[in-house]
């Protein structure tokens, strides 16, 4: 009998405690909602709308700014491709910092989606003898050329195959995207990427408030949290509205070209037809959408 009494009171205490805990967390229902949010691709349109509303509220609270979060899907009949003129790039790195500003990349710890490699003209494209930390007085330095590398948005990406939770996938317009609310941060995709295009938020990302870009896309440049992977998305928030990526627009020598592969009048199709393009590490069969060519 005594045993039964103790058992009953034990159960009562446990249920009281758990109810108390739940009501304490009741104030954070939104956080619970966000925690139990499913993979973006499995959500209905209504669920996406709710999530975006919550996100905009969260950002307003955190950064004291009005954010416009878009979940705009891919446009029809569009497949993006990019071409970079190796004969023109002077290594000024303006693209790197334009990208940082446009895409809300963390300043400390520093994240750069674009890495510009300085290579020797005599060696040609040779990663083992390249330098990403070049810092001469003036560029281009004699005897050297420059190769910017970012996500190649491969047609057969290896990063999307290895993700254990399907947090990263290729959209119909060719952009490889990441659902930052689903990524568990295992970094397998970073090990798989042959171009070093993926970057991890090792610490809580910091962006100065006055430099925040509030025009964001859910799968692109919205503010990230620590513990998730991020990478170039061809400025998905811009290109799905018809604009060029920031790096294309800022390049002072016009080395960067972007367009729709399915449009026969686009710059990209012209380049493929009239210039000779190459891709990096073609033996890995990643089939990148990012071409390099020589305009002069």
């Amino acid at each position: 009998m005594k045993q039964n009494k103790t058992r009953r009171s034990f159960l009562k205490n446990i249920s009281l405690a758990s109810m108390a805990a739940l009501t304490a967390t009741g104030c954070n229902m939104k956080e619970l909602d966000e925690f139990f949010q499913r993979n973006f691709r499995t959500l209905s349109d209504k669920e996406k709308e709710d999530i975006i509303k919550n996100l905009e509220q969260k950002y307003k609270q955190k950064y004291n700014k009005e954010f416009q979060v878009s979940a705009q899907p891919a446009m029809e009949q569009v497949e993006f491709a990019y071409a970079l003129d190796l004969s023109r790039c002077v290594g000024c790195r303006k693209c790197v910092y334009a990208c940082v500003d446009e895409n809300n990349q963390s300043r400390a710890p520093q994240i750069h989606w674009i890495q510009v490699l300085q290579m020797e003209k005599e060696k040609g494209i040779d990663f083992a003898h390249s330098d990403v930390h070049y810092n001469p007085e003036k560029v281009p330095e004699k005897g050297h050329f420059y190769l910017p590398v970012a996500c190649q948005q491969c047609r057969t990406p290896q990063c999307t195959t290895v993700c254990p939770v399907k947090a990263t996938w290729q959209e119909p317009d060719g952009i490889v995207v990441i659902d930052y609310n689903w990524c568990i941060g295992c970094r397998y995709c970073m090990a798989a990427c042959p171009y070093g295009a993926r970057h991890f938020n090792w610490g809580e990302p910091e962006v100065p408030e006055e430099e925040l870009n509030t025009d964001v896309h859910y799968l692109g440049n919205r503010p990230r949290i620590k513990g998730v992977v991020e990478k170039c998305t061809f400025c998905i928030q811009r290109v799905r509205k018809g604009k060029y990526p920031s790096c294309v627009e800022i390049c002072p020598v016009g080395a960067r070209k972007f367009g729709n592969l399915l449009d026969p009048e686009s710059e990209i199709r012209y380049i493929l037809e009239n210039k000779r393009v190459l891709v990096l590490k073609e033996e890995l069969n990643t089939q990148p959408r990012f071409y390099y060519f020589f305009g002069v």
Partner: protein
Amino acid sequence: MNFIRFINGSIKLILKGSNAYYAWLFFLIVLAVWGAFGYADQLNEGLITTNMRDSVSWAFYIGNFTFLVGIAAAAIMLVIPAYIYNWKPIKEIVIFGELLAVCAVIMCIAFIVVDIGNPLRFWHMLPLVGTMNFPYSMLSWDFFFLLAYLIINLTVVTHLLYCIFYKKPYNKKMVQIIVLISIPMAVGIHTVTAFLYNALPARPFWNSALLAPRFLASAFCSGPAILIILFQILRKITKFEIQDKAIWTIAELMVYSMFIYLFFTIAELFKEFYSGTEHLLYWKYLLFGIGDSKEIVPYSWSSITMGFIAFVLFLIPKTRKNFVTLNIGAVLIYTSVYVEKGIALIIPGFTPDVLGQIYVYTPSMTEIRTAAMIFSLGFLLFTFLVKIAIAIVFENYRISDISKKEKHLMREMPTT
């Protein structure tokens, strides 16, 4: 209810012991607490407290995970010769092997949890509630295999101990079937972990066909080393009977796998050094350093030296049969494989990185503390499990030992 009494009985066992036992527990607990505070730092600030960065995105934690998978696999692979050579204490070997495997797998899972950026999101990996990327992602396979392996081993060892505790006959058929399944599963979990690395053409250092065979060979070199030492200890302090011949046979088998491992390594070295492509850079960094970066050269050479000495000690029958040199060899090969899996496998895969840049990695204090926490908790668990197993298997600890007390208690309670 019976199971709860079994657990109760087990808990009673681990709370009592000699002074040496308490000292060992105290040491492990202090280490675990020290480690836990380090891990708390990591939970607070993120993985930036480690020395992993974009260039070297997997390091100490994943290295330890890989090593422990090898231990988990090898513990069970020992069951194969036990069957073939018809060793008398086959049941005991199975039990202790499985206990080691269970602890190793739990430590593996712990290392994964501390390594990922958002551990609370682990449920994303599950099927149905999450979106498991099966069959494309090797990590999904690894997760699935490890869990299955843990469940299988836990089931068998708990069932065996439970039956002995209750003086009931165990379900021989079920146990035999599950143990037989666990052998290819042991090979499976280590192969799948090897495939995790093998699957990445971006990393030429790992993209060699020999990687999975090398993994298995090194696992079979190092795992039985623990068991050799454990069996000698058990032989001294309990009624565990295992002939010298059996221990020497284990050592002989380890020699075969050491030789195979040596041969595989020479094959790899020949291919890279003779072909002299840029893929050679990774092996060069490992063995000779590149330019001024020579950080892991001492580790790789000490691993090679220790491994070679262990090979020679085990190869020569005189030193193999001498228990002093045998144990030295066991410790040496264990350490050699630990250094090799932890550092000599992971770091050169990332150095130089895919864009040719070199980032010099050495584990940070946080990583060492977190690893210490996991190892000490794992050792603690293993100590407890072995103590329970020893009592039940060798010292005839049975339900009768605690049920007497229970009957006494019942008599004392007032009836209503």
